[in-house]
């Protein structure tokens, strides 16, 4: 089932992605598939996930959640719950409204008007919305007590389909906003009139739909919050993957300075973007820790996660018009995008601009217009999910390519090759001023097709037909734009004061010469401890095992900045950029110190064998242990002007400008990793049931520090995309009840569901990053694009929905037969 080969830029197949190398110091760690150091504790069950953290006297928290999609709250009575022995206390929306400010809204009007609190105040707006929090001595008691909380509701009609949200009689979720419209923007680049005039054909696509799902990390959200009354400071043990964002949302809401919020994470059981917006629940925990004067423990139930957390942006692309030439050259497109934010704007409406990082997809058309409208509905709030907002847009561009090919009777491979941005055009400036750093899409497509033995498809199609099956093959090409320029947020709201990006690392030599690395990131399985050590060891020329990287994140390490966290495919650029910067600072200080000790110029020195020595006289050698000891404990006699601490903190800052708000133009992302997938499927035409019988994934992410870790990300993204395409959807009934609230009905792929997988990789180093790396990991939904394309190929019917369960495929076949 696994057949993989990595192919380097020169075209030689190698196996570095699979075979663990026997590693030696001299070779250099970059490019080595070093087995992960994180694994030992995780394999032994000694990881520390948030529910593993315990504190004496802690109270367990259970949320009472709304059973209605839309209702006024007319009465809340916690007295019976509080009377139960073992219950420590409760928190209601009324208290939250008194104790906190509403959360800061990213949006300009009308979305800016939302009054978002940590618990529902006055009204509930989606099934599962937290209304009251109950804390008790045991988990079971908290759960029991929650049933004694009395909440009375006055139900209201619900709006569930975003396409209805702007109708004049649609129920309004937030009266303060005057309607369900949250944000709207018109993006227009190039000359559409000219493009459509030049076109041989205008292909019209009435409606394309990208569905609602997410990555269901196996560990749900959680926290253990302690309050230090004496200094008014909270320690928030949690698994939030973007503490920088949580802090700036929570601090002002709680009317406290950010230094009063200490975030501590260690092992996180998957994030995929879905652990960014837990700040409302964290505020509840903080308020209760203070109110009840005891640590508060909260672990989200799986059903509650499905009901309430981080659904991806459901998006319609309507009235799409594509200007094309007869030979398949794409000139431009216009489309009207309708985006469903769910009941609250938690990270939205950033999705309204983040797609623009990949405006043209992978294609060279220059004339593009997107009218973007975001509305609220009575469903779980949307927030980032793996591929956030770019995935939806790239799915759209891939659908367009295949639909154009279908309409013109052209080969989808040829249409892609005709329109792909070419390797010799890199770096490539897109119509809206983003710069694709590097890539060779055509070559990757060839590799992917080779991996599935594309030439044999006609024969396999015939053979499948003889068995009564319909075979289809489809391509999904995609980008992982990484390292955001947060200045793009000003295209959503010009009053926002965010721009650029950053990440921090601190590298120090301790008194015994121990090299200690502290990251600002919050990894959830991406192997930061291992890859950071590789980079450090290469710069310091020391044994890999001498580099100690602290596990997880702690605000009190003071090794983080405003944008710190692990999200949006950026660690290899921002995190490792910070590591590189801090290590180089440290290396320079070591040399400075040695120069003072040896009384020689710094240029005469080199780092080697875990120390520093004079190049021409290697016996003059100062091991790191000596360096650390001198500075930390034995510094008498050092020159007065020697400015060396051996504790180096570096803030990596990518080179960004503020975008031009008028033209909506500018570089929004630093790097663009690429994935091209090919899926081969077989459909059972009598039932619509289908399987993936062959699959290829080719990726490119600049210089690869640890190829095995990278390939792991590619595989994981592939599996999630397959799940989303075939089985995973958050479907609601017309009353706003979630029909897929658990793993029975929301089927995620299991081991038997996975297809045979072939992988390959090429390297096109980024010219813009400290190490030539590109951020990667999200995967851009390539599997969804490829499966849609394969279904279209097999059925001969245009596929317009990203989610294609068996029933929909059967309907496609019925349609095709008519």
């Amino acid at each position, binding site marked *: 089932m696994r057949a993989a080969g990595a192919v380097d830029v020169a075209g030689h197949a190698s196996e570095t992605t699979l075979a663990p190398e026997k590693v030696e110091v001299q070779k250099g760690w970059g490019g080595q598939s070093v087995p992960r150091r994180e694994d030992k504790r995780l394999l032994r069950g000694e990881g520390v996930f948030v529910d593993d953290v315990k504190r004496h006297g802690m109270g367990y928290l259970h949320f009472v959640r709304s059973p209605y999609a839309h209702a006024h709250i007319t009465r809340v009575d916690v007295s019976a719950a509080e009377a139960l022995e073992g219950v420590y206390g409760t928190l209601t929306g009324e208290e939250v409204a008194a104790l906190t400010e509403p959360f800061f809204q990213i949006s300009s009007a009308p979305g800016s008007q939302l009054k978002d609190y940590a618990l529902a105040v006055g009204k509930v707006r989606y099934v599962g919305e937290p209304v009251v929090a109950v804390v008790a001595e045991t*988990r079971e008691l908290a759960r*029991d007590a929650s049933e004694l909380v009395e909440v009375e509701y006055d139900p209201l009609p619900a709006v569930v389909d975003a396409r209805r949200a702007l109708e004049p009689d649609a129920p309004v979720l937030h009266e303060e906003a005057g309607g369900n419209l949250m944000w709207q923007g018109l993006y227009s680049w190039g000359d559409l009139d000219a493009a459509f005039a030049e076109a041989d054909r205008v292909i019209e696509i009435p409606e394309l739909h990208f569905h609602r799902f997410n990555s269901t990390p196996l560990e749900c959200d959680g926290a253990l919050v302690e309050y230090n009354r004496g200094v008014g400071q909270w320690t928030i043990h949690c698994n939030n993957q973007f503490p920088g964002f949580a802090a700036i949302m929570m601090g002002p809401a709680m009317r406290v300075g950010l230094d009063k919020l200490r975030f501590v994470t260690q092992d996180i059981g998957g994030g995929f973007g879905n652990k960014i917006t837990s700040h409302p629940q964290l505020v509840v925990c903080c308020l209760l820790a203070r109110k009840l004067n005891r640590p508060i423990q909260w672990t989200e139930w799986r059903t509650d996660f499905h009901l309430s957390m981080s659904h991806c942006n459901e998006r319609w692309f309507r009235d799409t018009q594509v200007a094309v030439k007869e030979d398949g050259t794409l000139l431009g497109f216009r489309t009207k995008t309708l985006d469903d934010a769910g009941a609250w704007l938690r990270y939205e409406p950033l999705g309204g601009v983040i797609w623009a990082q990949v405006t043209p997809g992978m294609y060279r058309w220059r004339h593009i217009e997107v009218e973007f409208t975001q509305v609220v509905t009575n469903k779980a709030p949307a927030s980032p999910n793996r591929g956030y907002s770019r995935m939806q847009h790239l799915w759209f561009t891939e659908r367009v390519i295949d639909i154009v090919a279908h309409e013109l009777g052209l080969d989808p491979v040829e249409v892609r090759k005709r329109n792909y941005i070419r390797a010799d055009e890199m770096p490539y400036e897109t119509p809206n001023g983003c710069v694709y750093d590097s890539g060779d899409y055509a070559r990757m497509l060839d590799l992917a097709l080779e991996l599935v033995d594309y030439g044999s498809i006609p024969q396999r199609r015939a053979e499948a037909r003889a068995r009564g099956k319909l075979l289809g093959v489809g391509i999904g090409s995609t980008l992982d734009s990484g390292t955001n320029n947060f200045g793009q947020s000003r295209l959503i709201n010009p009053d926002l004061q965010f721009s650029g990006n950053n990440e921090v690392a601190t590298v120090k030599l301790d008194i015994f010469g121990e090299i200690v690395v502290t990251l600002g990131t919050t990894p959830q399985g991406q192997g930061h401890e291992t890859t950071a050590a590789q980079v450090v060891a290469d710069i310091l020329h020391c044994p890999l095992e001498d580099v100690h990287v602290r596990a997880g994140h702690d605000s009190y390490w003071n090794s983080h900045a405003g944008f710190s966290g692990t999200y949006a495919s950026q660690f290899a650029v921002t995190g490792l950029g910070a590591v590189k910067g801090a290590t180089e600072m440290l290396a320079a200080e070591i040399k400075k110190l040695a120069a003072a000790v040896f009384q020689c110029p710094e240029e005469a020195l080199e780092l080697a064998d875990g120390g520093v020595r004079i190049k021409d006289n290697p016996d003059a050698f100062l091991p790191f242990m000596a360096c650390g000891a001198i500075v930390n404990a034995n510094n008498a006699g050092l020159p007065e002007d020697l400015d060396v601490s051996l504790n180096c903190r570096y803030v990596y800052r990518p080179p960004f400008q503020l975008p031009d708000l008028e033209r909506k133009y500018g570089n929004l992302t630093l790097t663009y990793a690429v994935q091209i997938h090919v899926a081969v499927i077989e459909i059972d035409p009598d039932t619509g049931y289908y399987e993936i019988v062959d699959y290829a994934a080719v990726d490119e992410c600049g210089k690869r520090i640890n190829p095995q870790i990278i390939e792991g990300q590619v595989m994981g993204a592939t599996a999630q995309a397959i799940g989303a395409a075939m089985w995973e959807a958050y479907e609601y009934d017309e009353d706003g009840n979630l029909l*897929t609230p658990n793993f029975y009905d929301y089927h995620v792929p299991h081991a038997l*569901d996975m297809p045979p997988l072939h992988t390959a990789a090429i390297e096109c180093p980024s010219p813009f990053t400290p190490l030539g790396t590109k951020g990667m990991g999200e995967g851009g939904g390539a599997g969804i694009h490829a499966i849609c394309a394969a279904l279209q190929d097999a059925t001969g019917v245009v596929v317009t929905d990203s989610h294609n369960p068996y029933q929909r495929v059967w309907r496609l076949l019925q349609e095709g037969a008519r």
Partner: protein
Amino acid sequence: MLLREVEYAKPASLAEALELLAANDGARALAGGQTLINVMKARAASPDLLVDLHGLEELRGIELAADGTLTIGAMTTYSELIRSAEAKARPILGEVCAQIADVQVRNRGTVGGNVCSNDPTNHLPPLMVAIGARMTIAGPGGEREVPAEEFFLGVYMTAVGPGELLTRITVPAGRKDGFASVTLGADGTCICNAAATVNGAVRVALGCVDAVPVLVSAASPDEVAAAVRAAGLTPPADVHASSEYRAHLAEVLASRAAREAAER
């Protein structure tokens, strides 16, 4: 995820178990727990007393009689049945059990639990109906046997009444059986299923299309589809299948199960 308060008893004999069930209105038998514990986690049902059947030897074991009749204890786990040499006399039993969920569930879940919970998406109710199994129910008045066709009464409801227990399932001899299903992914939640037996004519039991398995017969596998259509099914609609799609699947799967049975 957290159960309401409940009492627990582990009787050592069938008689003791029946006494406990009869004496307590809110008592429920606990077999494998692969369904009941989840129901209790969701607090969709909260018995006052769980009567754990794991101590009852009378409910265990698989016997193969000389005439090919199989007697399967209600507490037989799916894994035990799959491994059982005796059960190979009717291979469809192990084949279908091997498609249920996963090995952890199969190691603990029981055939008795599967039929007694009568979730419309379970595999064993239609299978038992198709192969003409007989269910032995023990109660205060003694034992009685109910044919599978009459055992399933409604969603989650069977002929096992309060104070009673299913003790064994008796399966007649035979090998010409078939089973077909469409599930969410491999061995996942079932969208539609059908079990068939050929014994002269074809007997097909459809699952997932009604509160209880629906039995249709036809003279030959080729006539099964028409028989299913003639049954005038109006299956429930849910997030995975409209009524129309489910009815169509029933037709297709019934024919496939029938053909498989005929070709054995």
